[in-house]
């Protein structure tokens, strides 16, 4: 939105000036800044204008950063500390997450799963969650062939603890639009809030990891 305003403003200025001040013949011109070879020309400036277009974008940017901070904070929130996803679920507890109108998901508690990357295959592990909440297997996708599958339940929120057995990888859940690097060490984590509008989706690797990087795929299936 803001980008559109800024670009419309800049471009109309550009077009206007490019044509308005266009000149065909070079000689008929009064040279307001006394341009001559070997002479540093007259200053052409306006302190107030320059300060204005320093301060205004500055304020705009601080504001933009602030506005975008809230949803980011939710995606990157630390475990336990803030109110988004509560504590780890006890046996038989459900997260019953819900989506607010800003697109932020909050849950009562979360389940822990494990994702391991290695050249060039993903491994999913439900740890000791019941198959009702989390299941793994394998499946065929049209073109990626046999890929590992992770099945999660709608309305539940998961925290993936992630490690790599070799080089750095990064699972990208295309539908959820989230990704995070996995290292040999230290462990990294990723929130997977399966709210009601999350569908089945492909998981790709988006941290370059060698030969078969582009076909290091997986599949997330959502069940009720």
């Amino acid at each position, binding site marked *: 939105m803001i980008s559109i305003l800024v670009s419309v403003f800049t471009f109309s200025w550009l077009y206007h000036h490019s044509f308005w001040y266009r000149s065909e013949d070079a000689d008929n011109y009064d040279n307001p800044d006394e341009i001559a*070879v070997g002479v*540093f020309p007259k200053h052409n400036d306006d302190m107030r204008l320059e300060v204005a277009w320093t301060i205004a974008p500055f304020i705009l940017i601080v504001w933009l*950063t602030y506005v975008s901070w809230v949803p980011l904070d939710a995606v990157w929130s630390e475990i336990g500390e803030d109110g988004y996803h509560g504590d780890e679920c006890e046996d038989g507890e459900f997260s019953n997450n819900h989506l607010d109108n800003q697109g932020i998901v909050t849950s009562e508690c979360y389940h822990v799963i494990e994702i391991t990357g290695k*050249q060039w295959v993903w491994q999913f592990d439900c740890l000791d969650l019941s198959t009702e909440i989390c299941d793994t297997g394998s499946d065929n996708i049209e*073109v990626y062939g046999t890929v590992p599958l992770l099945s999660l339940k709608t309305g539940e929120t998961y925290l993936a603890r992630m490690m790599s057995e070799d080089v750095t990888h990064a699972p*990208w859940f295309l539908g959820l639009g989230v990704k995070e690097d996995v290292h040999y060490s230290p462990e990294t984590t990723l929130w997977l809030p399966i709210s009601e509008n999350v569908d089945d989706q492909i998981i790709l690797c*988006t941290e370059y990891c060698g030969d078969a990087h582009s076909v290091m795929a997986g599949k997330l299936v959502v069940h009720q």
Partner: protein
Amino acid sequence: MNAKSARAILVLSAIAMAMVISPAVVSYPTGIQGVKESGCNCHGATTSSDVVPSIAGLPDQYNYSETYEITVSFVGGPANPSNANQGGFNLWVSDGELSPADATVQSYGANEVSHTEAGNDQTSWTLTWVSPSSDRNVEFVLHTNSVNGNADGANGGSSGDMWNRLTAKVSPPVLVLEEADPFVVLSTLIVVSAILLAFTLAYVFYRTNPESFTWDYFAPWIADWLTTTDHKKVGTLYFVAGLFFLGVGGIMAMMIRIQLAVPGNDFLTQDQYNQFFTLHGTTMIFLAAMPLINGFANWMVPLQIGAPDLALPRLNAMSFWLQPVGALLIFTGVFSGSGADTGWTGYAPYVVSETAHMGTTMWVAGQIMLVASSTLTGINFLTTIAVMRAPGMGWLQMPLFTWSILIANLMLFLSIPAFGIGLIQVYLDRVIGTAFYDVSAGGDPLLWSHLFWYFGHPEVYVVIVPAFGVISEVIATSARRSIFGYRSMVYAMAGIGVVSFIVYGHHMFTSGMSPTLRFVTMLTTMLVAVPTGIKIFNWLKTMHGGSLVYRTHTLWTLGFLVTFTLGGISGMFFPSIAMDLHLHESYFVVAHFHYVLVGGTVFGFYAAIYYWFPKMSGRMMDERLGVLHFLVGFISYNALFWPMHRLGVWGMARRHHTYFVTTEEAMGALPIEATGWNMFISVAAFIFFFSNFIMVANMIKTLIRGEKAPPDPWGGWSFEWMTTSPPPTPSFDPHNLPILSDANEHVANEPGTLSKLFNRLMVSEEEAEEASH
């Protein structure tokens, strides 16, 4: 034998025993599909020579539509008749039709078969292949895995297994040409372009003086170029090398685009593709963009500040000659078929892992040379600009291009040591087995990310800031005004220089950093937009009240303003709106940095070429060809990179050698339209690539029969326009240097607050002398 090793052996044999005895369920007993490229990597990361696959029953040359019975089998590995299972296979064929001969084999379509559950406890399978009815070079890819039949939970019992790959070729009855190997194509193209370049140079030499076209004249001429220390000649060398590598990088980009033109293409294999984008990125940044900038810096900085030459001319020649040698090292791998495949960012630990190609070592060595070259260049320019300005030229009277080179070199000088250290560590890791980045020995891959991006982000500005300088010169001259807000331009550039050092963290958003740090990084990243915005507004205001003369360089400058603004705005998406998480490492990023690098740096330097070429060669370029180049180039460029934003949002990942479209609504993968757009992009890429030859043709034509250029064809004010075109050597007479006067004399004489402060801090020479008495 001491007790320790005895214990170790005991433990190991216990583990081995456990592995043999442990119960048996086996991985994917129901067949494996789609492993043609990836391999059976759930049975171990790489191929293993213990397993020897074979295919029996294939003819050398097939007959049309005949049915052949084939047996695939393997020996070796952990497979053993006493295991619960022994192994499986996957066979892929490029043409004809595969089908199972019995229940141990199943079909995954006409060109892929695998074992069934029933066929999981054997090591040999039979099937049939119906050959094609036309002439094809048929390729078979066989994967076999040899399993030990254990079960270890989550992985479905794949530990300790081994696999290997075999490819076989069958010729058609009438021989058809083999599809060329992309490496051969690339190497041929590079060699051909080098030869063409040599011919062009020889021809230009011939035309400059047809009478003296003999070896006796040629030998000293070429020797002069090879040993020159004149800043103008070294500048030309940089310039020619830069354009040459722009072409080489472009050839690689074209091959990348051929591969991506249609989904699932197999023009390049995945490991060829990985080398191509790695070398494309490295070539474009280090061997094309930087030398082009250095070419103009060499040419123009001494001329603009009224100096006879650079401060350290011989060092300058050395900086240049390190580059071709470095380039040769960087490319060595390609000529042997296993070039660097790490991406231009060379992330650890991949870059030190065994799976990275051998050529990576040479690539690293070549980069170390380039680091040395840049460091020497930095020393040279900082010294020259600091001490060799003509009388009358204060810091705040330097032309903006010189300012931009000063700031770029300062940034480079401060950041490149970090990169150098990182490279040396990687080199040692790869060559003598140190463990800086070896994760299993406690090495820290994040260290590389920090060292690399501490350099890498400023580097992005190192290549863009000189373009700012060019644009400032061109726009002021074309509008026949002095640049609006000269001082705020300088401060803005310096501001970008400072801020660019503290924002590099944004490249590591997804690599697990603390939230507070993320916030700070996000804010500072966004703040870079402020000085950039100042510059754009100042440029626009410069045109106000001026009288804009349209020349080719003016067009490229306006083109730069459009694309750079667009690129800047698309860049604003990353730090904001949680978008980075989705767009990071997608084609959106590819679109964004090409908008900045091509639309910014390359366009800026195209403007520089049209602007300064008359000064450098003494001849005016053809304006009509120039406008044609601009129109074709600018339009195809936008058609090439703009749609990539869209692809990124759809979910096309960067550095993937292929992509797949799907009709399945729910998959979150690329929609069908992506196919059309990719083809469109590839076509536009070819047009853009070839449009640049218009410029090359223009330059050659100009050199041969361009009009003679006057000293100041465009009406600029700085010193380079004072000398003849081309300038003499030395560029200015050291005993009779030009003196800069100032149309704002009254302002210049009052020292500003800052200089007053400095004056107070500094001990003047006279005072120092007094004190010493």
